[in-house]
């Protein structure tokens, strides 16, 4: 299992330590970048204001200041709360995000875990965070929190189906569930005999990409799908009673999950760490790959945030109708068409 990353031979335990550190960096760096670049700055510019300007040059240290502020706050527990469940809920959410990242490849050898069931694993693990949200909503002993938790669950269950079904089209076309295999299938693919740029699945699976983006927006509970934390109706939903470190964990979880889903979208539809039409040797690619991945991830997050700042919130019934009556039938048709074309060509 010892792999020669950058022509340096490392023992298994050294590779493992590198992978764990790499995973921490892969979770936290994109999450921080997303918060600063998109949530602080892009949102402000879209609303004709400057956003944070005081902390550090151009407000770039604002996030560190915020983290410092949260860490100083008291770890509050509501009076009637179920303390143990209340305390564990944010940890369940954050851990499910960390494990999701484990199957994302960042280069030919720069991966954390190369599972044969890669994408299936990621989707399965992402569904565990629902339990954390329900735990938070229930244990807060607050009817707004409970409503938020229930709304979140109804929404996440409904949108998990189109998410999985959208991925199925890619899996059928690539012929594998392994994330590296999906990257390779796009790198070496051809579109009607033309192999100059490979076959990024966004070109042949554009319906799947659209479905995945919509379902992902809902899974992240970003506006226009933010009923679980709708501030005008539910204060802040399941987050209402949280403060300090535990709120910070939820906050990291939210944006790290955005990073994880966009990394998966980048692998599935944009060709992952590979550059279209250009191939370097694998040592160079191990260094370039993470940067290419980061670029593609940020592109996907840009789209997510753009929708977030543009559209007003759905109503609860519109949300459910949209998932069950539009997205799921479309994704089923997409799968059928993909399967027929796969056999025909």
């Amino acid at each position: 299992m010892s792999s020669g990353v950058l022509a340096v031979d490392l023992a298994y335990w050294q590779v493992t330590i590198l992978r764990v550190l790499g995973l921490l960096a892969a979770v936290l760096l994109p999450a921080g970048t997303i918060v600063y670049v998109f949530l602080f700055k892009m949102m402000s510019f879209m609303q004709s204001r400057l956003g944070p300007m005081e902390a550090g040059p151009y407000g770039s240290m604002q996030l560190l200041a915020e983290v410092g502020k949260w860490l100083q706050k008291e770890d509050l527990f509501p009076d009637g709360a179920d303390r143990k469940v209340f305390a564990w809920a944010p940890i369940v959410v954050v851990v499910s995000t960390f494990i999701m990242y484990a199957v994302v490849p960042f280069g030919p050898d720069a991966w954390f875990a190369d599972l044969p069931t890669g994408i299936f694993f990621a989707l399965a693990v992402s569904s565990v965070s629902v339990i954390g949200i329900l735990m938070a909503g229930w244990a807060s002993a607050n009817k707004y929190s409970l409503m938020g938790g229930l709304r979140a669950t109804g929404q996440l269950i409904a949108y998990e189906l189109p998410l999985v079904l959208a991925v199925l089209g890619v899996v059928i076309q690539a012929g594998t569930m392994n994330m590296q295999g999906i990257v390779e299938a796009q790198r070496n693919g051809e579109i009607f005999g033309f192999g100059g740029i490979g076959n990024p699945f966004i070109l042949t699976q554009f319906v799947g990409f659209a479905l995945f983006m919509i379902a992902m927006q809902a899974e992240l509970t970003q506006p226009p799908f933010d009923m679980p934390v709708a501030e005008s109706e539910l204060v802040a939903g399941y987050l209402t009673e949280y403060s300090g470190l535990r709120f910070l964990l939820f906050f990291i979880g939210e944006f790290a999950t955005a990073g994880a889903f966009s990394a998966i979208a980048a692998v599935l539809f944009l060709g992952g760490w590979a550059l279209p039409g250009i191939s370097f040797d694998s040592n160079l690619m191990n260094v370039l790959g993470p940067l290419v991945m980061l670029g593609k991830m940020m592109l996907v997050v840009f789209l997510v945030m753009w929708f977030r700042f543009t559209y007003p919130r759905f109503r609860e019934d519109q949300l459910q109708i949209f998932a069950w009556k539009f997205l799921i039938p479309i994704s089923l048709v997409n799968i059928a068409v993909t399967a027929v074309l796969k056999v025909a060509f």
Partner: protein
Amino acid sequence: MVAQNIFFGIIAAAMVVSAIKVVTTKNVVHAALYLVIVLAGVAAQFILVGAEFTGVTQVLVYIGAVIVLFLFGIMLTRARIGHEMDVDNERRWIAGLTALLLFAVMTYALLDAFDDTDIEANGALAPQATQAVSDSIFRDYLIPFEAVSFLLLAALIGAIVVARRE
């Protein structure tokens, strides 16, 4: 197999403790959350013997869907925090007897089938890879698979019809 055996023991112990907690705890939501630990342990055991697809399916179906629906149902109807007085009832002896009977049947079946055979991680007895699972479902067991899907669909539609009686 030594490392696997040690982890099997640790996970199995955690599962047994949580399983006992499921039936002894005084709070319905806590019982459901302990059940999550038991089911996660099952998934971990599957992964430990190399049945990755089955393990991941276990997480997706049982933890991600079944338990979430349990919790959803409990919280929609009754979900008090703290001890509940009416979670026990008088049928516990019958339940214990059933559990004992099930234990005996399972033990007999497992001992009868495997006895003291060692299961190598990648040997002939080891669980099959993802591709082999799909091959056997869609080639050897296609008709039973379709029959079960049809039955589930019928049950689903039936449940909707019963629930929506107007």
